[in-house]
């Protein structure tokens, strides 16, 4: 469905991605593991059209993804929910959600909102509250809800559990799994490698901009190398 072939990308003169090859098939959750600075976020930003690849090709549904800006990528149904959640602080919860479906007909909004409110009943209670006044967990729920408003065919999630309390983390992962069961494939970048591998089908391990390991989530969870480096076990 999505395929990255030999992607090189970076910022200015510094090359962060040094030839990434990865693929994601329909219905999958794929996770990217790696230390800080290994290029996980840059990979997502490159797919989303925020960072331009210097070399390599991105293929989407068997055709090259010829998009030069984030709104063009989104038009293909690829939606990134970035690290740090980026909730619009002075828009209300409802406005934050509505803006997520900006380029789609407003007639479909109420059905989508209903679905999002069943995932996150809390958001339904706070429609008029400003985004900036929500707690971190609530903001993450709003960020995922906003992404769903764009009717994504592929969801890119960057660190959805960062800085959240353990119970909320568990809830967020449950919902990611539930969204995936509805047929939306997900490319997930997570600090919390253990939880990510638990819900993922497959995973890739990045080290300084290159993929050093790729396997099923089960095998990665069992691998000594991964356990030592990313799951904090000795």
């Amino acid at each position, binding site marked *: 469905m999505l395929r990255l072939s030999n992607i090189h990308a970076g910022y200015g003169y510094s090359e962060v991605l040094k030839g990434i090859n990865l693929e994601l098939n329909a219905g999958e959750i794929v996770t990217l593991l790696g230390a800080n600075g290994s290029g996980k976020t840059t990979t997502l930003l490159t797919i989303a059209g925020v960072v331009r690849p210097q070399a390599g090709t991105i293929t989407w549904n068997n055709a090259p993804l010829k998009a030069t800006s984030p709104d063009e990528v989104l038009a293909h149904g690829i939606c990134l929910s970035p690290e740090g959640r980026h909730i*619009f602080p*002075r828009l209300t919860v409802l*406005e934050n959600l509505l803006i997520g479906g900006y380029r789609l007909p407003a007639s479909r909004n109420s059905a989508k909102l209903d679905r999002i409110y069943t995932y996150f009943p809390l958001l339904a209670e706070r429609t008029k509250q400003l985004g900036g006044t929500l707690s971190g967990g609530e903001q993450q729920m709003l960020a995922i809800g906003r992404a769903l408003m764009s009717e994504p065919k592929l969801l890119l999630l960057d660190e959805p559990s960062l800085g959240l309390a353990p119970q909320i983390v568990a809830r967020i992962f449950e919902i990611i799994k539930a969204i995936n069961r509805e047929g939306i494939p997900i490319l997930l970048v997570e600090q919390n490698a253990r939880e990510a591998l638990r819900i993922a089908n497959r995973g890739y391990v990045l080290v300084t901009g290159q993929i050093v390991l790729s396997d099923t989530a089960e095998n990665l969870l069992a691998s000594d190398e991964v356990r030592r480096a990313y799951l904090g076990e000795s």
Partner: protein
Amino acid sequence: MSLPPPDIILGGLVRGSIYGLVALGYTMVYGILGMINFAHGEIFMIGMFTCVFALGLLSTLLGTTTLINLLLATLVAMIFSAAFGYANERIAYRRLRKAHILAPLTSAIGLSIILQNFVFLTVSKDNISFPRVYSDQLNKVAFTLGGVHFNYLQFTILGTSLVLMAALFFFIHRTRLGIAMRGTAQDQLMASLVGIPVNKIIALTFVLGSSLAAVAGVMVSMYQSVAGWNSGYIWGLKAFTAAVLGGIGNIPGAVLGGLIIGLTEDITCYYFGSNWRNSVVFLILMIVLIIRPRGLLGERVADKV
């Protein structure tokens, strides 16, 4: 010292509502790009000139059908100013968006000087007068209160300003484009990630602000009967001051700041004479900024992060 008479208050409100209208342009551009568009006063001045010339042309073509000509001329002025505002952004600011903040600022000052001198050299070195035939009909006494005359022109200006401000407020808070505009002002990266065409929204901001400035220009030239190549400088500076006083980036703040400055000016003139008015206006600005650097309704910078 007695209270100022009602005509002074009304005069101050009229002047202040015009400042507010121009200040909206400064504050919207600041809100979305974080830069001061110092050429905004010139957009206002171009609105003045366009209206006066359009009225001349329309009088020859259609005869002096007052209201229709006035509305048409205002529309032409809005379109012309909007085109200038759009071109300014395209030519002088867009390429500098990622540059140091002083670069677009300097570009804006340069543009302001170019536009002033362009009008000075090619259009008119002297003030041009607004055709009286259009303003006189509005300059009739609407009612008299306590021996003071109030005229229709003042109410037209005040009413037009308030209606436009309310319309802008509605647009920004209730429409899809308005929400996109606020979203772009708050987080440009995220705005592009939800599919908002950020460049178009920024262009729209300039177009809207410039149209409002054009209407303000039309009303000032009608009120004062003259327009000059340098009119944009002082009106622009006062409107900018109004935006800062109210809290730059804040829409109701621009209106509030405008009204306060307009009232301050006219009340100062009444008590101390017109020579004091600029001193008092800027003294108040300094005092407010010392006590409250973010302006009256501005958010703390920390809130924006």
